């Protein structure tokens, strides 16, 4: 075998898809365009007082979105995150009120609770041989039930400000950046790196692309799948703290409701294929920012707030539509 050769060797960069995909450029462009337009029509939009709360609202959705991206890359889905948020939030808030937990304990408790719920999903899905959407429809009901039991027909009142560091007021910001958003970005960056550069991450893509081939290649499919749900659970736990911090001093049963669709919307707008095998957390973060921009923008423009979801729907179609179109064009030659 001759090793002396002049041909261009495949470089690491070229083995992988580009670090930022076309879809992500499109999304960034759309978001920039929206921000500029909103800045022109409502001058207050591009001020810290407006952007900071926007980022605070983005943080929990994007954070769960990171986990959901893992799951959807493996060709699964988790529609139970709404119920899981509710359960984590109520346990944490209640413990904070009754035991006046310090910050690390409160966050630790919430993450542990989320991890446990994620594990329940993960075990049932990976080992139960039932499609993820069915299992998580079921567990969504269970989580909601347990959350309502913990609520015990009351709201949780007088939640102390322990969690304010996650983005409330001056204590919640460093250099103007809300901490919850910063934490989300750090976690998303780690997740991006994990998905792109570690065996575990690459295996998730392999599993979503062809689960049987992954098994034949010696990948332990079931533990990996289980971990994707468990990680999402843990992120839900952290996000529940963000939700508590972003709410008032009272926690009611509405917390978490309908968030599963918001998270899934962010993920699919971000270009992750619902069929598995392809996706990115950068896109998910951008997707979450886009949805929140649209919602805030509609309110700030003084348009009827009922229109916000119409625009969210239209943006999903545009974002996923361009992605489909690009793939089709790429497949042409």
């Amino acid at each position: 075998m001759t090793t002396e050769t002049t041909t261009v060797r495949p470089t690491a960069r070229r083995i992988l898809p580009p670090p930022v995909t076309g879809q992500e450029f499109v999304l960034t462009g759309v978001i920039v365009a929206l921000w500029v337009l909103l800045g022109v029509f409502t001058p207050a939009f591009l001020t810290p007082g407006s952007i900071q709360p926007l980022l605070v609202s983005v943080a929990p959705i994007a954070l769960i979105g990171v986990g959901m991206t893992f799951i959807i890359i493996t060709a699964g889905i988790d529609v139970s995150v709404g119920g899981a948020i509710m359960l984590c939030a109520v346990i944490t808030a209640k413990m904070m009120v009754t035991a006046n937990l310090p910050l690390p304990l409160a966050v630790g408790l919430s993450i542990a609770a989320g991890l446990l719920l994620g594990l329940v999903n993960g075990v049932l899905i990976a080992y139960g041989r039932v499609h993820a959407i069915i299992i998580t429809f079921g567990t969504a009901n269970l989580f909601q039930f347990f959350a309502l039991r913990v609520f015990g027909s009351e709201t949780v009142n007088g939640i102390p400000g322990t969690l304010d560091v996650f983005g409330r007021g001056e204590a919640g910001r460093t250099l103007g950046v809300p901490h919850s958003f910063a934490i989300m970005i750090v976690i998303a960056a780690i997740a991006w790196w994990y998905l792109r550069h570690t065996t575990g991450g690459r295996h998730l893509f392999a599993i979503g692309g062809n689960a049987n081939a992954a098994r034949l290649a010696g990948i332990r499919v079931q533990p990996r799948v289980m971990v994707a749900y468990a990680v999402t659970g843990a992120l839900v736990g952290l996000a529940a703290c963000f939700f508590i911090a972003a709410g008032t001093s009272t926690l009611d049963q509405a917390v978490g409701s309908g968030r599963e669709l918001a998270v899934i919307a962010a993920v699919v707008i971000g270009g992750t294929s619902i069929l598995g095998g392809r996706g990115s957390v950068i896109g998910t973060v951008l997707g979450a920012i886009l949805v929140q921009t649209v919602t805030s923008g509609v309110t700030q423009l003084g348009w009827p707030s009922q229109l916000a979801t119409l625009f969210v729907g239209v943006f999903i179609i545009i974002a996923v539509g361009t992605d489909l179109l690009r793939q089709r064009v790429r497949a042409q030659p």
Partner: protein
Amino acid sequence: MSALPADETAYRLEMRDISKSYGGVRAIRHADIAIRPGTVHALVGENGAGKSTLIKIIAGAEFADAGAISFNGEPITISSTTDAIQLGVQTVYQEPQLFPELSVAENVFVGRELTRGVRVDWARQADQMHDLLATVGLPDRISTAPVGTLSIAEQQQVSIAKALAGDATVLILDEPSAILTDAEIEVLFTVIRRLTSAGVAVIYISHRLDELFRIADVVTVMRDGETITTRPIGELSVRQIAELMVGGVVSESRPQNGAATGEVVLELDGFSRTGRFDGVDLTVRSGEIVGLYGLVGSGAGDIASVIYGMDKATGGRMLVSGRPVTVRNPAQAKRLGIHLLPANRSAQGAFSFQSIALNIVVGELGLLSRIPGWASRRRERAIAQEFIRRLAVKTPTERQPISAMSGGNAQKVVLARQLVKRPALLVLAEPTQGVDVGAKEEIHRIISGLADEGTAVLVVTSDLGEVLRISDRILVVRAGQITAEFRPDATQVEILAAAAGADTPDADTTPAPIVIQEDQT
């Protein structure tokens, strides 16, 4: 029954008394096989004999119900693919098991990534990629392409590269040559020889018996899930192997079919599809069987899909019974009396968990009632029963799902679908691929019967024995063009030479494939 050599300690891998059932199907029965390091051990047998199942057990992809395995003399259990890979068992499966969205380079290393800490060491992988690709004869630039964009043959080569990426102690190749060209097979043989000289044990499965004599040292013959015999290849001839495989004397009679003089049903005139085939002229007459022979990737299959309207023609004319037509979709093709049996039974033919009855009538639902849009189940069953009888499909009832049938029977069901309404022109793409000898003969008989009744038949196949056996005329397709026409009394060497592009058949470089056939000795 076991004819294994006596020196057992020298075996790399040894399997004793292995059995395996799928539900009620006994895929493997008391099989024995033992492989020495540094040898190529061929595994042969008819379709469904259990070859793939046996090697899947070695690879940890399936689990034996009974039996013992030992590795370098140590008894072991292989309970997952990971176990097998850790022993150095590397497998190239019959169907490439790859990840379409990932690049070639990633595919090669999935499951055995080179790492630095937790991070995948892309640079080192890239380095090794270069050598691996050179070894299997693929260009360097391919390593960044998503596997989904490659041809089947390239995917097969990627699978081989993938198997070579690990440190193999046992290399399993399940029909690697079925979809490779001769040049590619030569490269593969070079690789195999290099590996065996380094002490790797190679298990090689193939239906091309001739090539075994060039690469294999030992051959094990399987029949009905049993290992019939294991012998040094030098002790056997092709004919002996074939007879061991089928368990009797091989005799196939060529169905008689007079030269057709019927009217022209299909005429192609300068027919083209950019990038696939170009300037194809052919005619098929009523009552005639025309064989369209080409190697995988020659474009023969594309001609069939365009005739049927699955793809669009980009040039030339197509005439059906003398009238020029443009076929836009299969529904229109069927209105013109053109029916097609697709090449890939599981992907394009079978509705797996639906009943045999639905699988038969699905193409002609209009026949199920006089009321348009209505479908009578009674009529559906009646039609299905009729075809089950006519084609001698082995099934207890027409309500069984097609997924529960053996390959040959499933193929008959898909074929029956094309006959529910009598076709004027029947296009058959690889009609007996993956079908064993008995069923193959029956399918051939059915095809000649149809021609006798006046149907024009175009058989698109890459099976040389088949094309010689049933065609009235043979057209050879190479690189998207029809390069030669033969009568059925042509020799295999002539036809293969035309298909592979050699000007003069040369027995040294293009050995005549030896197919089980009467005139062979």
